[in-house]
């Protein structure tokens, strides 16, 4: 026990405040032990990611290097914590998952540590899945799904989704301009490869046509699973894995990959992190195709190292965004455009949706 540290520790402080509870307040034994070893704290998105990543990344890494990996869940958009963490040098995470947009915001502010390797070291990696400060681990895709028991005719495009006469039914879109504007433009006939820069006015014009027909504007990913599964709506935009878990659970629904927009999540290291070396080794470890193939068993997200498909069963591959058959129907969302325009467009969207 190192409780007798002369300086006033956090635990000591609580002990002084409430002597009776000091034993219950101290962290559980297994956690204290973990501090003693060389250990990195990894912030993953939580939920099903925890067990899937542990099996694919954390446990094998511990086995191979002897370093401990403690995983915690991070916020959907952990940028605020990240910034404060670096500004104040209180590193509660050594590695953290970031979306492309979060990566760009943080990289621009100089809050990220370089990961120390390039595409040259990992040739089979999708080129979008690596940058100086970040390694993409999984690809998620924004698509739409529909209830096969409710829709008489199967919608195949975003134009179908927006066509309320031909495809009657309750619809749901995200209460957020990201993805929603792209979807409107796709419905209006803009080709997938010519989306950016977005024609914002045209997008809102198209959205006007469907505004009254959107039964639910969803705000959280978990909501989309629940609404598809419960039959609250018949057609809904969202992330593929959310729909997949409803379908896996027996919901009569189908995902439309056509005109999907994918994006990538991956690891970054906060600037100035004292354990950056171990963190870099861990990130490099996660670029391995065999490791990535493992997490797809529990998660319907696509590996970024496309060699992973060599070991993924065909039946599972069709449910994953980066499988060849799905990937070719989709394009990557342009985070740069959003980084530059998000604030203004969000304001405009908020105003539009209220009126």
């Amino acid at each position: 026990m190192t409780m007798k540290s002369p300086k006033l520790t956090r635990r000591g402080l609580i002990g002084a405040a409430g002597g009776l509870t000091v034993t219950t307040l101290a962290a559980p034994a297994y956690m204290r032990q973990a501090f003693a070893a060389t250990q990195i704290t990894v912030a993953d998105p939580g939920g099903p990611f925890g067990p899937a990543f542990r099996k694919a990344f954390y446990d094998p890494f511990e086995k191979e290097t002897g370093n401990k990996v403690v995983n915690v869940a991070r916020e959907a958009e952990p940028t605020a914590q990240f910034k404060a963490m670096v500004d104040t040098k209180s590193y509660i995470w050594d590695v953290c998952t970031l979306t492309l947009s979060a990566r760009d915001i943080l990289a621009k502010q100089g809050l990220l540590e370089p990961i120390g390797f390039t595409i040259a070291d990992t040739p089979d990696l999708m080129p979008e899945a690596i940058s100086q400060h970040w390694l993409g681990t999984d690809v998620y895709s924004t698509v739409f799904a529909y209830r096969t028991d409710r829709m008489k005719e199967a919608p195949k495009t975003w134009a179908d989704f927006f066509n309320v006469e031909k495809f009657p039914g309750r619809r749901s879109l995200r209460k957020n301009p990201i993805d929603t504007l792209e979807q409107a433009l796709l419905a209006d006939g803009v080709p997938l490869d010519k989306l950016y820069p977005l024609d914002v006015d045209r997008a809102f014009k198209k959205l006007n046509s469907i505004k009254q027909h959107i039964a639910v504007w969803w705000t959280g990913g978990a909501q989309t699973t629940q609404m598809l599964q419960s039959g609250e709506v018949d057609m809904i935009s969202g992330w593929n894995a959310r729909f997949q878990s409803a379908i896996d659970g027996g919901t009569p629904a189908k995902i439309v990959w056509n005109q999907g927009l994918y994006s990538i999540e991956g690891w970054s290291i906060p600037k100035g992190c004292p354990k950056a070396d171990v963190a870099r080794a861990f990130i490099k470890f996660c670029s391995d195709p065999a490791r990535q193939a493992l997490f797809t068993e529990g998660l319907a997200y696509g590996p970024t190292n496309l060699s992973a498909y060599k070991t993924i069963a065909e039946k599972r591959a069709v449910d994953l965004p980066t499988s060849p058959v799905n990937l070719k129907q989709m394009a990557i969302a342009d985070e740069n455009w959003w980084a530059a325009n998000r604030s203004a467009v969000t304001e405009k969207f908020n105003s539009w949706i209220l009126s």
Partner: protein
Amino acid sequence: MTAQAIKRVFVNPLWLAIPGILFLLVFFVYPVCSLLLLSVTDPDTGQWAVKSYTRILNTDVYLRVLGITFRIAAQTACLSLIIAYPLAYWVASLPERVRNKALLLIIIPFWTSYLVKTFAWMIMLGRMGVINSILIGAELVKEPLPLLHNEFGVLVGMVHTMVPLAVMTMLPVMTSIDRRLISAAQTLGASPSKAFWLVYFKLSLPGVTAGGLLVFISSLGFFIVPAFLGGRQQTMLAQLIITQVSELLNWSFAGALSVMMLVTTLTAVFFYDLIFGISSIAGKEGSESSHSKIRIFGLQILEFISTAANILSQLSRVILGGYVTERLLAVFAWLIIGFLIMPTLLVIPIGFTKSEFLEFPPPGYSLRWFETYFNSALWLTATSRSFIVAFLAACLATAFGAGTALALAKSSSRWAGFIFGFFLAPMIVPRIVIAVGMFYLFARIGLVASNAGLVIGHTVLSLPFTVVTIGAILKTYDMRLDQAASTLGANRVRTLIHITLPVIKGGLIAAFLFAFITSFDELTVAIFISGGLATTLPKQMWDDMILQLNPTLAAVSTVVLIVVTLLLLIAERFRKNTIS
């Protein structure tokens, strides 16, 4: 300074408020001010700038959201009071032993995390939800009723969360009303309904105004309920502030939005005080003059209401008969209790489902989600941490709150009103602002991701509740008891321990429970401060909810419900034993 002057300063009861004031200065005022400073700082240059404010004024969207936020909060406050008042009245009229049991029924739904309750309402109100299924099954309606994703859904969710708060605020005032006054009014010729409105209702108004204010201000900060139960039009300001802070990273603009919210809220509170006199919450008798126009006007309104109520009650006697009319209140109270515990009851079977989803009725039953919970160190640690943090935060908040409320009740200083307002401030400042400000402070002194940080944060948030609750009960406390005790040889400390505290025990317990619940169910501060290894239960639930919504949540809620019910029953037994 003469000896007398020194004595006067030291004997001044306001000293009791000092610990609480210092605590708030360090852990509330300082963090919030440093954040608000950001609102007038250019994020790029670090210079003074007002461009965040010009941006607010350049578009109408933020003012409109502000309007929506106030409208929904006001509606929630009114509906909560209308529903909670008869319930509180009914509970207050029960014999004390039964009363505590009924109160338990009202408090227990409070222990279901509001995240889970929100999802329960989605299951109930949805197009294919429980209520619509029943209505369609009974062929009462053809098309499903639009109960969800609109203002109705938001109000159901918010009122459901707020009714227990309103009941618990009003109850101490109601139980302290001398029921003989009702008998007196009746012997003087007032019909039962007139006696109620002109005497009982009027005397219970301090509780009503306190409850209304608490509910209104708490409602201003909602973001989960409008996000999940609301529709296109129900965007509340807290949602926009969170987006600015956590997604767009524009702290300056978030600060500006917070200032806007703060200023309008304070303005609203000012007018509320002008009309209803919230200084009465502080334990002060309203200094209303007998000729005050507002007082006379208020009495005339009551006169009018009582006449109308009189006619109504006579009508109901004619139509429903005396027997039914006399039991209307109890029937209504039980209906409301049903409304309160329904989501909780729904959650329990879902916890035992074998399905992957939160669906009702469950297609089959199993213990798998309980296994998931009990096999997860993460969940178990989070659960025990939440209990410990909530207990400590509640102790601190009750201690600070009791000191402050006593100080305010005993002091005749003109500072009292100001100090009271100061202690309400953590309730008025949006939690997200407090949370982010605290995160900055705590990061610098190493309290992030620590239990101490959580306890401090939750104490700040709970303090207004404890001050108001204890203040309300002290308002009815007979200060002559203190004088009696001191003539009987008790010094100030002994008077406090042996007389004041036991007499206001009901208020202290209520305050403690308030604070405990506030901390136990707190998410905003937890999101920022708890992260990493020190995760609380709501944070863990929230994390789980973001990515994968599964019945583990229901299983966790069920376990928490059972544990808490047992704790409450033990506490009740303990309380009874100490009395006998």
